[in-house]
């Protein structure tokens, strides 16, 4: 599946590993939570980057203390209507200090892009040649937001406050 990162098509250096597969020496692996929990010490002793795949039924709290150890975390949207990954994304970004690549996989639709970005996703596995253009367009459709979330964009209330400051200075 093609990858879009920070709005542009990107090479994907990551390979998703089966739990039984040996760790590759020449590629960056994405492993399951189960494997992380079972082989934590071995994995920590290994040199190189590590990625984690979380399923929707695996709350982000399960990696609360370890999030920063991963370079990429993938969160799955099993279908359009399953929004659990939005909460997981915000928790990883806002509470568990995850600063790496947060990737949306599964049924990822352009009409949800703006929400995903606001929740802290910065990479997306999406189909289609026109995906980058459609996706960058989808991101600019809405420019006003009321909620303070992971992407740090100022909210309407914060902008109102700043306007108030600016206005009072002119008098």
């Amino acid at each position, binding site marked *: 599946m093609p990858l879009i990162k920070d709005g542009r098509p990107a090479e994907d250096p990551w390979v998703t590993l089966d739990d039984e597969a040996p760790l590759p020496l020449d590629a960056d692996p994405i492993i399951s939570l189960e494997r992380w929990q079972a082989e934590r010490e071995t994995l920590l002793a290994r040199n190189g980057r590590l990625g984690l795949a979380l399923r929707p039924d695996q*709350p982000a709290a399960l990696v609360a203390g370890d999030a920063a150890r991963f370079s990429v975390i993938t969160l799955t949207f099993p279908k*359009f*209507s*399953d*929004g*659990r990954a*939005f*909460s*997981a994304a*915000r928790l990883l970004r806002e*509470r568990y200090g995850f600063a790496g690549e947060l990737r949306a996989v599964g049924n990822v639709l352009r*009409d*949800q892009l*703006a*929400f*995903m970005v*606001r*929740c802290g996703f910065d990479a997306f596995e999406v189909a289609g040649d026109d995906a980058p253009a459609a996706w960058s367009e989808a991101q600019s*459709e*809405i*420019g*006003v*937001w*009321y*909620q*303070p*979330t992971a992407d740090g964009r100022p*909210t*309407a*209330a914060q*902008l*109102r*406050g700043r306007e*108030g400051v600016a206005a009072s200075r002119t008098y």
Partner: protein
Amino acid sequence: MYRYDEFDRTLVAERVQQFRGQVARRLSGELSEVEFKPLRLMNGLYLQLHAYMLRVAIPYGTLSAVQLRMLAHIARRYDKGYGHFTTRQNVQFNWPKLADVPDILEELATVEMHAIQTSGNCIRNVTADQYAGAAADEIEDPRIYSEIIRQWSTLHPEFSFLPRKFKIAVTGAANDRAAVRLHDIGLQMRRNLKGEAGFEVIVGGGQGRTPVIGKTIRSFLPKRHLLSYLEAILRVYNQLGRRDNLYKARIKILVNETGAQEFARLVEAEWAEIKHGALALPGEELARIEAYFAPPLYEPLDAVAPQFEARKREDPDFARWVQTNLAAHRQPGYAIVNVSLKPVGGVPGDASAEEMEALAGFAERYSFGEIRVTHEQNLVLPHVRLSDVPALWAALKAAGLATANIGLLSDIIACPGLDYCNLANARAIPVAQRISTRFGDLKRQHDIGGLKIKISGCINACGHHHVGEIGILGVDKKGEEFYQITLGGSADENAALGKIIGPAFSYDAVVDAVETIVETYLDVRQTGEGFNDSLARVGLTPFKEKLYAAH
């Protein structure tokens, strides 16, 4: 009233353009109906039995005269000349063309209205006490907090794909007119021991096929923490709510399966992480929004208006209407005037373009240009001088809008039923019309007194039958419409679910059954006793005996 600033205006305008693009992609065939469905549902556009239906949000049921005129214009230009006010204080247009919907939304945006989140598995239009800001029994105006919730919930990045739809209701008064115990979250304003205003937080109420009275998970929440607490509830629900079964996906099921106490613990734990974060309400923003809901410029008046009192003595029709349709206003010399959308034999909640325009005019002349929509599908002119009430009544009468039946038997809630809805098993509107016609003599209704009849055309309970004193549920029996009757429900501060009285009645027999129930009530009631009080005292048996005697 709240007025959009540039941020609110920009967001709604952008949303209209976004939807215009989505409709164009649908009309060109780029999107299939299956792909388009979740997108249109995020903008209040349903596909019903015969046509698209557009549900327009009326946040917390507050409308200006200018907005009501726009609804009339839309009814006339894009629909069949009428609109339907709903139990969620919204308005529905039943016959728009898909290609017209972006234009309708663009016209709505010019009067600061939209259809955002009137459908879909997101936080729906927040509802509130229709007497907000006018009620004599109010602690604070619930619209201030409803507006804050409206903004916070609009296009919420995290909570737009919840397990199921999510409804929040707010009341500032002890007498609950917003049915807060029957919502996913109900907020009941309270004072703590220090006299500060805050909220009792009620979670997991709802109707549908599994009716549940909500449970209090926090007895007092300081106002500044409102949004962080709501966010904590929603976050727990978004992560743990069931997604395996559509009928078990509402938060009421999660609360029941988890246990209210454990659910409260999860919410409190989540809240502890975020309560001091960016969602704490800044004083300036609270003050900014509060200012929009400042009381109108009332005149200093005597509490008693002689010409109003004289008219009541002289004209029994007027006196009857005053008795049912007026409510106490907090400001001396003013009244809250209810306008019934339930004329004898009419469709509950429907209003024609002409009626909307007439009411917009009355609101401008008599009520500071303000109108409210009630969850019982009526309209309200919230701030009318008592001395103006006789003239307003005459004007309403001339417009066919002076039915004196608020709270009476014919003030029926009914869902659209099989006349419009593809989920329905049976018709609801014609049953309401037949009951209303059977009891068409208003004097008889006044003798019967307050009585709430609520009718749903299917188990999804959009007609609130579970909480009707007489609840009527349409069911399908081998292709025929039958109606199951429940007695003893209530949606107010004494919230209760009705009990099934016995086997269902056919379409032809259901009106007789209602009449038998009413006659039985009149037989057993003691002086001043309401329907549910009599029922609590005598039980279901006398009603059953009368209803099923012949069988």
